């Protein structure tokens, strides 16, 4: 709260500090709302804001679009580079030069880039969808969500290619998610190991 009375403290004429605000011309001309004495509103409760119920990080839904976009852009970059390389190889073998070669190169880059970007993006959309779904359903956001969402993503992505490939896809998703989870919780593991070696 702004204490406007401090300007008049060295004035010996005013001893009752509570009545001084009304006489300040600069404030009383602004608005009567500013012309009040804070004593009228005694603080009935402590003036703190406690971070109760706050989530410590952003949820999955807020991160989802950025993740999907990043996956798309990275996939596009990888696909573009491989497409350029393949296009160079193919046009060299076919002996195409000049304008024809340029067009073929652009075709290769566009085709590979978009196909890999689409694949990455679709996987990312599936993963984000499952992740958001699970974190809403369970009410928490932890490593188990990551694991289950990645496994489900792998299985859904390969679900039209037969049972065996579906299982392989789920296994790949689970493996990647397990690696990510281990990397994310490496501090916890090192603490556990530390406690195990030195039970002091």
């Amino acid at each position: 709260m702004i204490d406007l009375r401090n300007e008049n403290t060295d004035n010996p004429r005013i001893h009752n500090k509570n009545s001084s605000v009304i006489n300040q011309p600069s404030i009383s001309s602004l608005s009567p709302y500013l012309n009040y004495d804070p004593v009228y509103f005694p603080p009935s409760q402590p003036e703190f804001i406690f971070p109760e119920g706050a989530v410590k990080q952003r949820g999955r839904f807020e991160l989802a679009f950025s993740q999907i976009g990043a996956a798309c852009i990275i996939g596009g970059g990888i696909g573009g580079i491989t497409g350029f390389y393949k296009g160079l190889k193919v046009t060299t073998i076919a002996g195409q030069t000049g304008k024809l070669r340029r067009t073929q190169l652009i075709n290769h880059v566009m085709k590979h880039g978009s196909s890999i970007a689409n694949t990455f993006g679709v996987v990312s959309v599936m993963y984000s969808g499952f992740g958001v779904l699970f974190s809403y359903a369970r009410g928490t956001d932890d490593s188990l969500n990551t694991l289950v969402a990645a496994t489900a993503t792998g299985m859904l992505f390969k679900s039209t290619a037969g049972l065996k490939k579906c299982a392989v896809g789920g296994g790949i998703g689970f493996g990647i998610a397990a690696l990510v989870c281990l990397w994310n919780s490496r501090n916890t593991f090192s603490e556990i190991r530390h406690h195990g070696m030195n039970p002091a």
Partner: protein
Amino acid sequence: MEEYAREPCPWRIVDDCGGAFTMGAVGGSVFQSIKGFRNAPSGINKRFLGSLMAIKDRSPIIAGSFAIWGGMFSTIDCTLVQFRKKEDPWNSIISGAATGGILAARNGLPAMAGSALIGGILLALIEGVGIFITRFSAEQFKPPALMIDDPSQLGAPPEASSS
């Protein structure tokens, strides 16, 4: 303008790209499922299978086109913000036209001009609708007639809590 509800500028490209990809994926799935269902041979199982195949084959492509549109649009928008030092509807309109033009660049000059025109008009419509919605929704937040109370009527301050 809801510029404070979005990411700051370089990261907005990634965010918009992802949002557009998701929009395209969901919308493309719905659209392709209906199309595959209608175009499949008769028999309810074959229809559902055709629907599934259409989703699998076509919706990533639609999603990718949306993502390219969104990413390109956002990139040009951010570039314009950087150069013009302001964010206004003209940025969106210019970047919509430029995006339409660039993405049709391989189809020849007339196609580019047509796409750029369509992109610009589309974005101008969107921005116009946004401005009108803001105008109309601002009406309900108009403050009522100002009523000034004089706190000097409260009387003498309470003595108990005076310091």
